[in-house]
């Protein structure tokens, strides 16, 4: 399909503006489809505009029936929402993906090595590559993890690396997530829905499948079995129905065919972990835990936690159970360490990082701090121990008052913040909501969260979760703050 076939664009298509200064994922500045996008443009965008709205409505219905919902933290029970879905898929051509895949694998291997090192010999600290006080002062550095040696040295089994694409078209790492990254269930369900809605287009496009993820995840988990046990008992530990990602916990445990357990279903006896079943105690070998480190073991962490399993850290230490991801991995995804991640890649792998990070300023350096504070409204300021986008100040959008508060916070405690220049995230054609005219689409900012599995051999899920900021100009893509998602297609060729 070439650009010439679109000699009669429909009015809606004409109205789509490709803006210079922003990278449009689907179109270049001459409004030609980018590599791999021609078919989608021709079959989906350049046709009857009402069809897109209809597709979205059908998709919503499917998601509702499938129960693909999430709970917004703090909202009343009964207010489950569907994570808004946009039917225009994001396409990544094979060559681009090959580069991303290599970069992601490299990065996660390095982060895992870093975690192993800081809880072991600490060589990178002795060599001064990462400041020791930064690591020890990080609240996610858990002293209880010192000396632990998980099977194959794997602390991180699942990683979600947030990528953004700048105006130059290059992908940059925005943030790492190596504790309990979530979102992969949407990736899989989005594909299920798209395949039902547009079976011919999906097939003709040659999209790489994502349906093997649960099997791959299970395999990676089984590889952690203590003593290399051949058919280990695996379970998924969830905080329960009030957790915003509960749907994903249910989904993954079903897909993997493993038991979904809560803390009070488990008990430690003789430093081994058991499930309380109707027929007695059944030992667990590997636990895929989706609860925060803090709540994992009331003996060692928060003593008021009822979500975890008392005595589990002793069982881990005894080598009787393996946990994924291991506790203490938060040291590698703390924003304070982020600026050092390129050095971390070089240190452990002796390679140049394939994926650059978004320029990150560590504000504890007085010169750097001065530079940032002088132009605070040009930066995104992030606290080093918040999550979910809350507490982030986006300079150009912030109110005067917010900027003052950010400045005060930085001056009071510079080590609690980092600053990054505002990245003009790439945009992607996205259907507008009702009121904007349901049959019109416009560019909206997107990011990408690919998922990496570290097992005996690292595996990267083709594509990942493309999150889209539904409000015009908004850069915040999180589900809890008005974002939605798209199916992500990595082409086979």
């Amino acid at each position: 399909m070439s650009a010439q076939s679109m000699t009669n664009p429909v009015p809606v298509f004409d109205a789509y503006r490709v803006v210079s200064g922003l990278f449009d994922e689907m179109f270049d500045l001459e409004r030609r489809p980018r590599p791999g996008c021609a078919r989608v443009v021709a079959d989906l965008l350049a046709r009857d505009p009402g069809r897109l709205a209809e597709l979205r409505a059908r998709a919503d219905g499917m998601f509702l029936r499938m129960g693909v919902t999430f709970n917004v933290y703090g909202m009343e029970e009964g207010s489950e929402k569907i994570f808004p879905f946009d039917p225009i898929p994001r396409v990544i051509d094979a060559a681009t993906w090959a580069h991303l895949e290599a970069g992601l694998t490299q990065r996660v291997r390095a982060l895992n090595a870093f975690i192993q090192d800081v809880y072991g010999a600490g060589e990178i600290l002795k060599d001064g590559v990462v400041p020791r006080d930064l690591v020890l002062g990080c609240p996610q550095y858990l002293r209880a993890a010192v000396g632990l040696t998980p099977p194959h040295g794997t602390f991180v089994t699942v990683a979600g690396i947030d990528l953004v694409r700048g105006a130059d078209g290059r992908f940059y790492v925005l943030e790492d997530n190596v504790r309990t990254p979530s979102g992969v269930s949407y990736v899989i369900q989005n594909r299920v829905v798209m395949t039902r809605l547009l079976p011919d287009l999906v097939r003709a496009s040659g999209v790489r499948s994502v349906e093997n993820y649960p099997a791959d995840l299970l395999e990676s988990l089984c590889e952690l079995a203590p003593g290399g046990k051949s058919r280990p008992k695996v379970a998924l530990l969830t905080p329960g129905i009030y957790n915003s990602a509960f749907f994903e916990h249910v989904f993954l445990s079903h897909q993997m065919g493993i038991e979904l357990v809560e803390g009070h279903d488990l008990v430690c006896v003789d430093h081994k972990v058991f499930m309380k079943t109707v027929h007695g105690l059944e030992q667990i070998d590997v636990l895929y835990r989706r609860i925060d480190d803090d709540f994992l073991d009331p003996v060692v962490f928060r003593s008021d936690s009822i979500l975890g399993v008392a005595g589990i850290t002793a069982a881990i230490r005894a080598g009787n159970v393996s946990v994924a991801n291991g506790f203490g991995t938060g040291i590698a995804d703390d924003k304070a360490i982020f600026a050092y991640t390129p050095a971390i890649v070089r240190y452990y792998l002796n390679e140049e990082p394939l994926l650059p990070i978004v320029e990150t300023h560590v504000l504890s350096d007085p010169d750097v701090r001065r530079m940032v504070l002088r132009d605070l409204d040009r930066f995104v300021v992030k606290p080093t121990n918040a999550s979910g986008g809350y507490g982030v100040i986006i300079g150009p959008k912030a109110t005067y008052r917010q900027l003052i508060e950010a400045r005060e916070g930085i001056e009071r405690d510079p080590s609690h913040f980092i600053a990054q220049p505002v990245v003009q995230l790439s945009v992607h054609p996205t259907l507008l909501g009702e009121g904007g005219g349901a049959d019109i689409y416009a560019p909206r900012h997107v990011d990408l969260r690919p998922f990496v599995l570290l097992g005996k051999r690292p595996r990267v899920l083709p594509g990942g979760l493309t999150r889209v900021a539904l409000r015009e100009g908004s850069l915040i893509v999180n589900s809890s703050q008005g974002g939605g998602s798209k199916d992500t297609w990595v082409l086979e060729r």
Partner: protein
Amino acid sequence: MIYRIRHTTHFIYDKPAYESHNEVRVTPRSSPNQRCLSFDLEVTPKAAVLAYDDSFKNHVHAISVHPPHDAFTIVATSVVERLAPRPSTPLRVPFGEFLAEDAARSAQHFEFLNPSTFVPFSERLRKFFWSARPAPTETVVEYTMRIVRYVRDQFEYEKDKTNVHSGVDDILSAGGGVCQDFAHLTIGLLRLAGLPARYVSGYLAPRPGVVSDYADQASHAWIEVLLPGAGWTGFDPTLRSRTTDHHIRIAVGRDYADVPPLRGVYRSAGSTGDMRVELSIQRDGENDPGVVRAQMRNQSQQ
């Protein structure tokens, strides 16, 4: 000096306890001044015991008892050789000079220079520090001894003013406390001055002929300070002095939170667990063991 130590921790529950998971730190550490010649741990009822070393190289036992039990007893028996501390000659470094190296020290000894759970750098602590701050010409050692005495002079030894969860602000308000509190407070002041200081838990062996005010304590707490040219040097803020060969070291950490002799959780239909501790320390060559019996605070439960 050879000490034979027997440290018994005994719990009695009003209703049976079960699924009890604990961590104990009761093994004397080995160091240049102290050798643990033997150690034995006996737990009743039969328990699962896992030994490991924590991030401060304290020897820890993870002890779990699963079935219901009315009582729980841990007996730690050890033989420790305590050598007289080597005479150390800390360099006479005036504070003005000492602070020039702050940045390097701050990275290397981060954990012992910064606030911790029981030693936050609160407004009150800062004010207290300021009231006794070092003079630029005062040497580091002089300052340390001054502070060690200063804290003890300002506060009474009183058992009921604070509890095991009290931090530095609590002793500052209460005006009195026990060895744990003196240690925390002294550590806070020293850290604010830029001196790496750490918390030590252990035992104070009774000295013949000395009637101690603290005879009914089991665990004792003191501090160690990293002095230029002398390494980690022990001071006892409760006794206003350097440590002697009567101080038997068990565990070190940033503060009490890192070294509780016992920490854990258990389930029970009842609500109270009574904890009793008995400590007997006998010097080789003595006939009567100095027995110390103490009623300790209740353990928390789930």
